[in-house]
């Protein structure tokens, strides 16, 4: 489509943000409470035994992983619900008949989903700073990873929302794939602490690269090289963008 329907993008963005604002306390209270619980359990119980990892206090060490955990979950769920719900209720007809291009639609939905995730990420960061002293080495890298991860996984969620034909399918990937991968992705430990062959196996877990890169931004130390982490994150974003472009060109699961 020629031109750019900025008002259309803004309409979708505002619509999605308004949906989040209606349940603002629930949206924010949940991550704050969960994070606090993680600190009590992991930081308190395990921290007294582990104390430091790679010279970083264990309580601080788990902060990037914790944020990443919520970021992935929130991005996927926000991104998928945004488009799944119109499909489910039938209101998607309006989106499909509107003078709005696929990329404008993605910008509106994914932009809103990513915004929500980033806000939650920052709220968790703020909560964490009540429990531990955080000395962030590369604030810009923190911001960049926050942004890239939120967008990439909101986009991934969006694809999931288009693919899903039922609520079960919608929950399948986040619960059975992403959450286990996050827990096994070095959110609460350094993969260097693992015995072989698990250390090598872990390198096939994509979440390892996200957590490692994010942790590098905080402490200047990661499990894998920062360039690889960054490359992986942008690569994932590019793959999701490509899939989205193909979906819209073919109308897959959206149009007959």
């Amino acid at each position, binding site marked *: 489509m020629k031109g750019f329907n900025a008002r259309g993008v803004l*309409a979708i963005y505002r619509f999605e943000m308004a949906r989040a604002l209606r349940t603002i306390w629930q949206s924010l209270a949940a991550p704050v409470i969960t994070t606090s619980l993680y600190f009590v359990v992991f930081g308190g119980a395990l921290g007294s035994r582990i104390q430091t990892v790679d010279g970083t206090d264990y309580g601080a060490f788990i902060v990037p992983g914790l944020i990443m955990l919520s970021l992935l979950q929130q991005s996927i769920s926000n991104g998928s619900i945004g488009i799944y719900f119109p499909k489910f209720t039938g209101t998607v007809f309006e989106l499909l008949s509107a003078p709005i291009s696929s990329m404008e639609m993605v910008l509106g939905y994914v932009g809103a989903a990513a915004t929500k995730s980033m806000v939650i990420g920052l709220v968790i960061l703020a909560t964490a700073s009540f429990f531990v002293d955080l000395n962030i080495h590369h604030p810009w890298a923190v911001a960049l990873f926050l942004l890239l991860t939120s967008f990439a996984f909101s986009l991934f969620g969006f694809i999931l929302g288009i693919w899903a034909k039922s609520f079960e399918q919608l929950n399948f990937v986040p619960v059975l794939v992403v959450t286990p991968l996050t827990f096994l992705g070095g959110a609460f430990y350094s993969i260097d602490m693992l015995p072989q062959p698990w250390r090598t196996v872990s390198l096939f877990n994509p979440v390892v690269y996200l957590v490692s890169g994010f942790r590098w931004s905080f402490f200047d130390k990661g499990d894998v090289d920062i360039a690889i982490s960054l490359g992986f994150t942008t690569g994932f974003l590019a793959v999701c963008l490509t899939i989205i472009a193909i979906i819209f060109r073919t109308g897959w699961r959206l149009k007959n």
Partner: protein
Amino acid sequence: MDSILSIRGVGKTYSSGHRALESVDLDIARGEIFALLGPNGAGKTTLISIICGIVTPSTGTILVDGHDARHDPREARMRIGLVPQETSVDMFETVWSTVRFSRGLFGKKMDKAYCEQLLKDLTLWDKRDAQIRELSGGMKRRVLIAKALSHEPDILFLDEPTAGVDVSLRRDMWKLVSGLRSRGTTIILTTHYIEEAEEMADRVGVIDKGRLLLVDEKSALMKQLGKREMTLTLQEPLSALPAELAEWNVDLQDEGHRIRYTFDAQAEHTGIPSLLRKLGDLGIGFKDLETEKSSLEDIFVDLVENDR
């Protein structure tokens, strides 16, 4: 004809192999009200969905006010508003915000005065801050109409507008449609109620099994509607019509067992008494007489039956 919508060779075969629409050609004149009439599953909704961009056509082209719907979809779609058959609305949104959303989605700057008037016309203004789930079914339908009109489209599609709708909404719908028409909006509605087509439309198209069987002015159809038939079952079969009956429009049917007389019911003199007198004079006796009105429904049923 100054056509605002031009459809050429549009067909649709679903991936299941079901052929929902054969090659349809149709022109819609600017400012007219066009009724697409057909039984359930005839392809009405498929055709509308294709024009609105919800379903991808297998063949054919569509021009909306000169803009190709495939190559220039933004220009084409901006001109179209669609009120779907199902009441699919965002239950948790308020009336006002959902109308504002629709207008924005179609790329139009917010115009509070216009939206206010729109909601007032649809008697939704008092409910503007209510969540849509709190509204009755009829009110939800009004919300859908408000959404479709929010971006001031040139063409409005109403898919089965009065299916399952109460009398007051039906009346309001008529009023709304005539109001829109006087402002120059082109309206295309689908229906399987013939009265609806008769009441509202300038032209009627009959569609069945994915084929457009007939497109005609409603008045031309009404003229056919005015035709009546009288059938006389004779006591003795005739081998040929007597020459004395030539001045009436009669023909012999059923191997001479029946005489059929076709006449204009709206004419001052139907010719029935004189025909019956003449038959008496000729000594042609009959044992049964029946008259029949050919309505739009008959025309419709005829077309659809012949098609099967």
